[in-house]
């Protein structure tokens, strides 16, 4: 069973006569264990593809299915719940919540869960990313690499099946970038699927499959 299945996804922005085609009949399948990287220049549609696959951006045409669930057949709130349970996001800017501690940032997606259990899960996740000493620190006090690892831990706290990463190593040094890529590869090896978009060829080295994208189309 594919974790992610995109079929002929088309997305346009702007009015019809002057619209810009951001995704042009993109089809993609990610089975369990897949680590797929999509490489392309800025503005080629990588982030649009990621948001569409992440149930955040409704395509104009085509279908997006995750774990046999058609994403855009669901209501907004159903999609939010599905996203929380199934999909993890990692961004280039990390986007940690500044007033929450490292542990609180990681456990933020666990609003419904038991507080004690959630805390234990968060601590375990932080230990996995070598952040056990920083659990009570605020994100502003961490290094760039540490912050990205916190973001990665937050993306994985709900044990998602699909991890969507948008330039996750863009702000990192070589060592931290390697740590992040290793974590993504491990996630795929453990049965998840990773879709990584980047313009950096080096970041694609750990991926099983690398695809090129240009002007909204996969080449």
């Amino acid at each position, binding site marked *: 069973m594919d974790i992610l299945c995109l079929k002929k996804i088309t997305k346009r922005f702007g009015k019809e006569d002057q619209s810009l085609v951001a995704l042009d009949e993109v089809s993609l399948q990610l089975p369990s264990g897949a680590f797929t990287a999509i490489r392309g220049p800025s503005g080629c549609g990588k*982030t*649009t593809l990621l*948001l569409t696959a*992440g149930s*955040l*951006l409704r395509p104009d045409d085509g279908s997006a299915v995750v774990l046999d669930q058609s994403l855009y057949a669901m209501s*907004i*709130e159903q999609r*939010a*719940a*599905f*996203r*929380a*349970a199934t999909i993890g*996001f990692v*961004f*280039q*800017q990390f*986007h940690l*919540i*500044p*007033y*929450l501690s490292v542990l*609180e940032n990681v*456990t*933020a*997606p*666990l*609003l419904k869960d038991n*507080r004690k259990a*959630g805390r234990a899960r968060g601590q375990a996740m932080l230990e996995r990313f070598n952040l056990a000493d920083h659990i009570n620190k605020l994100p502003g006090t961490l290094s760039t690499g540490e912050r990205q690892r916190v973001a990665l831990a*937050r993306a994985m706290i*709900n044990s998602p099946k699909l991890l969507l990463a*948008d*330039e996750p190593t863009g702000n990192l040094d070589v060592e931290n970038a390697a740590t992040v890529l290793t974590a993504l590869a491990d996630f795929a090896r453990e049965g998840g699927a990773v879709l990584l978009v980047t313009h950096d060829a080096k970041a694609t080295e750990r991926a099983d499959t690398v695809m090129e994208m240009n002007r909204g189309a996969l080449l």
Partner: protein
Amino acid sequence: MQLWQMVLKELFHRKLNFASGLISVAIAVGCVAGALALLAAHDERTEAVITQKEAETRAAMRQMEDDYRRIMRDMGYNVLILHEDQDFAALQRAGVPDTFLPDDYAERLAAGGISTLNHLLPVLQLKTHWDERDMEIIVAGVRGQVPIEHRRRARPEGGIGPDGTPIMTPVPQGTVDVGHAIAERFRFSEGDELLLNGAALTVNKVLPRRGANEDITLWVHLDQAQEWFEQEGKINGIFALECVCHADSLGQIVEEVTRILPDTQVFEFSTLVQGRALARARAAEAHREAIEAERQNRAALRREREQTTLVLVPLAVLGAAVWVFLLTVANVRERRYEIGILRALGFSAIKIIGLFQLRVILMAVIGAPAGYVLGAVVGASLGGAALSGSVLGAALHPLLIVAAILAATALVCVAAWMPALRAAGQDPAEILKEMT
């Protein structure tokens, strides 16, 4: 992590925004509580002022009543009870009545429960020529005032009682009380001896000037007068002091006296009585007017305060609502990326709304009671109520404080609803694209 924990963390992160909203809620609730306490304190103060004024008036009137009673007593009798056949013209001509009554009439009047008269003095008055001094005089026989027992018992507290000090004291046998004009003419003084109808009498006392027939009267014991004028068992009048001081009291007196003594009539020295009644009525009216003026002043002040609060309270409430709305708009704008991330992490729209609504609810829950207590204390103080008084006790009733919290909560929830809804409705894809 729980939603409320996130809210608390955010509050401490953006203290100024939260504190400013909290203060605006406290001010609005404080204005409402202050206005209520101010008006309640005003009413209590008004009640106290009017009660005090009324007490002062009552005391002044009681004092005046005593003063009048003393003055009237000193002025002498103002009512004369005569036989029903007595002709007034003849009385004016002769200066003394020429019809007679049984000498127990005064006792019957006293025993009959008379309430409109006091100081009953049965008298036998006759005009005669004083041979020893060759002078026309009036001889009056008296036995002393007749006690009115039921009136003694009804003596009012704090005032001199009716029938307390007699106007005319009894004249002992063998003595004479001398009218002022006679004493002045013959230079009589207490203890002197004089002859009257051949009887040697000792001057008991010289009476003060009255400016009336009493000044040319010799007062002797009633038995002596009855014997001289061969009127044993008879009197020809009962002097009395009117004690009901209404301008139309004569009618009451006549009714009461003739009920007890049907064959009598009442003659009133009206100028004295009416002067007393009018002065008393005038004073009472002045006091009533003073109280009414005070009442009017307090009512005007209340209207003024009501009008001020009618403007101030809605302004404060509206101001707080607008301020909370603007603060929430600013907060939503500031947290735009955070909202995008939370939506991407699976936060539902309800949870996003909850983040903002819980925030303002905390403003109300903390700000409302603080503002309420402060407003009530300030309002009660401005209204002149004591801080430990009943006004403050009533204003700080727990149910009212709970009601204030609930009302403030409803207000801030409404004020923050649109911005919170807007936050929840933001397109996370749009935000995340901006972020990359």
